[in-house]
C-alpha cells in the first residue's frame, strides 16, 4: 500500500477536488431538479411540456454525450468557458433530470386532498407547492434521491476525461501511468476515497429519513 502512503497528499488533493465537485453538483442539481419537478406538475400546459421534454432528452442521453456537448460542442458555436464550469454544468443538468423524477414520485404520493385543501384556503400554486406539497414530497423522496445523488458522486469520476483535472480518479491515472505504480493498490486507494464520500452521504441520508419520517 505504499503507493497510497507515499502519495498521500496527492490523494488528499484529489479527494478534496472530487468532494468539491460533488457538493456543488449536489446543490445545483437539487435546485434545478426541484424547479423542473414544479414545471412537470404545474397547471400551465407549456411548462409541463417543457419539463417533460427536458427530462426525456437529458435522462436518455449518456452522461459522456452531454459532457462532449458541453466541452466540445459549445466552444464550436463560440461559447467559451473553463472545462471546470462545463463539466460541472453537464453533471448538474444530467443529475437534475433524475432528481426531478424522484421528487415527482414524492409529489404524486401526497394525496390530492392536500393540494385541494391548500387551494381552498386561497394559496396560489407556488405557495401550495412550497408550503404544503414539497415538504411532504421531499420526505417520501429521500430514499430515491439518495440513490440518485450517490450515483452522481460516482459519475463525477467521468469529468476527469473532459478537462476537469485533479479529481480523485485523475490522480490514480497519474500514479499508474506516469509514475509507474501498480494499478491495484492505487485503485483500492481510489475506491476508499469514493467510499469516504458516499458512505457518510448514505449515513446522512438515513439520518434524514428517520428525522423526517411522518405518520400517515
Amino acid at each position, binding site marked *: 500500500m505504499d503507493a497510497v502512503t507515499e502519495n498521500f497528499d496527492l490523494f488528499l488533493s484529489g479527494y478534496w477536488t472530487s468532494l468539491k465537485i460533488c457538493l456543488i453538483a449536489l446543490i445545483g442539481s437539487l435546485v434545478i431538479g426541484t424547479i423542473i419537478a414544479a414545471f412537470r406538475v404545474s397547471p400551465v400546459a407549456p411548462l409541463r411540456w417543457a419539463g417533460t421534454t427536458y427530462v426525456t432528452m437529458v435522462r436518455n442521453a449518456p452522461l459522456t454525450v452531454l459532457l462532449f456537448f458541453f466541452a466540445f460542442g459549445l466552444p464550436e458555436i463560440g461559447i467559451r468557458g473553463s472545462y471546470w464550469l462545463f463539466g460541472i454544468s453537464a453533471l448538474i443538468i444530467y443529475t437534475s433530470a433524475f432528481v426531478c423524477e424522484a421528487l415527482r414520485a414524492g409529489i404524486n404520493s401526497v394525496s390530492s386532498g392536500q393540494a385541494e385543501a391548500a387551494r381552498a384556503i386561497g394559496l396560489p400554486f407556488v405557495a401550495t407547492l412550497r408550503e404544503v406539497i414539497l415538504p411532504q414530497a421531499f420526505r417520501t423522496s429521500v430514499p430515491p434521491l439518495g440513490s440518485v445523488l450517490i450515483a452522481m458522486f460516482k459519475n463525477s469520476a467521468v469529468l476527469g*476525461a473532459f478537462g476537469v483535472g485533479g479529481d480523485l480518479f485523475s490522480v490514480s491515472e497519474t500514479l499508474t501511468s506516469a509514475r509507474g505504480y501498480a494499478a491495484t493498490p492505487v485503485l483500492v486507494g481510489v475506491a476508499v476515497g469514493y467510499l469516504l464520500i458516499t458512505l457518510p452521504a448514505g449515513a446522512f441520508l438515513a439520518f434524514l429519513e428517520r428525522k423526517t419520517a411522518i405518520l400517515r
Partner: protein
Amino acid sequence: MRTKALIALLAAGALALAGCGSDSTGGSTSDPVKSVDTSTFEAGSTMAKLAAAGTIKIGTKFDQPGFGLKGLSGAPEGFDVDVAKIIAGAMGISADNIEWVETPSKVREEVIEQGKADMVVATYTINDKRKERISFAGPYYVAGQQLMVAADDNTITGPESLKDNPDVKVCSVVGSTPAENIKQYLANDSQLVTFDIYDKCASALRNKQVGVVTTDNVILLGFVAESDGGFKLVGDQFTDEPYGIGIEKGDTAFCEFINTTLKDNEEAYNQAWASTAGAVEGAAAATLPPADACA
C-alpha cells in the same frame, strides 16, 4: 471430381491474394529479416521457448497513429508493430503467428508481470520507476517532448514562454509523462488541462479552448499532418524519451538478443520507420540509438 478441382483452384487463388495483401501492407514484413539459427538458443531461455512454440504474444497500443494503430484490417500497424515483427522474425516466428495484445499505457507493467505478453513495444519510455518492475531492451527510438500550437499563434515560441502567458492553457493526457514534465514550465497548476486521449486535445486546440498541446514530437507530427496547415510545432524538443521494449524483469538473455537483433537488422529498421511514423511530413529520419546495457 471437377467441383473438387474447382474448389482447390479457388482456394489456391484466395491464398495467393491473401499473400499479396499482407505483402503490400507492412513495410518491413516483405523484407527478409536475418533469422538467427534457432538451435543456438540456450535451452530454457525465452528465445528457445518462443521459437519452439512458434508463436509470441506482443503487447502494443491499438490507438497510436504511426506506432500501433488497429484499423479496419484487424491487425495493428505502425512502427512499434514493425519493430516487434523484426524481433519475432529473428526467432523464426512469422507475422501471422504473432498474437497482438492491446496494452494502453497504464497496464503495461501489469501485462508483462502477469505474463499476458512476452514483450511490450508500445511507445514505452524507459525510466527507473518502471525498471523496478520490468526490464527494458533497447532503446529503439528516442522521441522528445515538444509543443504544438495553432498555425497563426506567434506568442508561444517554446516551453519558456508558457510562464509569461499564464492565460494560455496547455493540454495533455491525464497521467502521461508529458503532462508531468510540462508542470515545471507552467505558471500554475490550473494552466494544465488534461483529457483521456490526445484527440480531444487536438479538438480543444482547434476550437481555441486551449492554446498549446504537448506530448512526444512523433505523436504531434501526426496531428500536424492531418490538420491541413492548422497546427504547427514550436520550440525545440525539451526532453529525451527513449522508447524501450518491455520484457520480464531480469531476463538479460532476451534483452541482449533483442538488442543484437535490432543492430543486425538496421536496414529493416530504417524501412519500418520510413513506411510508418517516418512517413509523416516533417518527421526526421530515425537512427537506431545505441542500446543500454542489459541488467
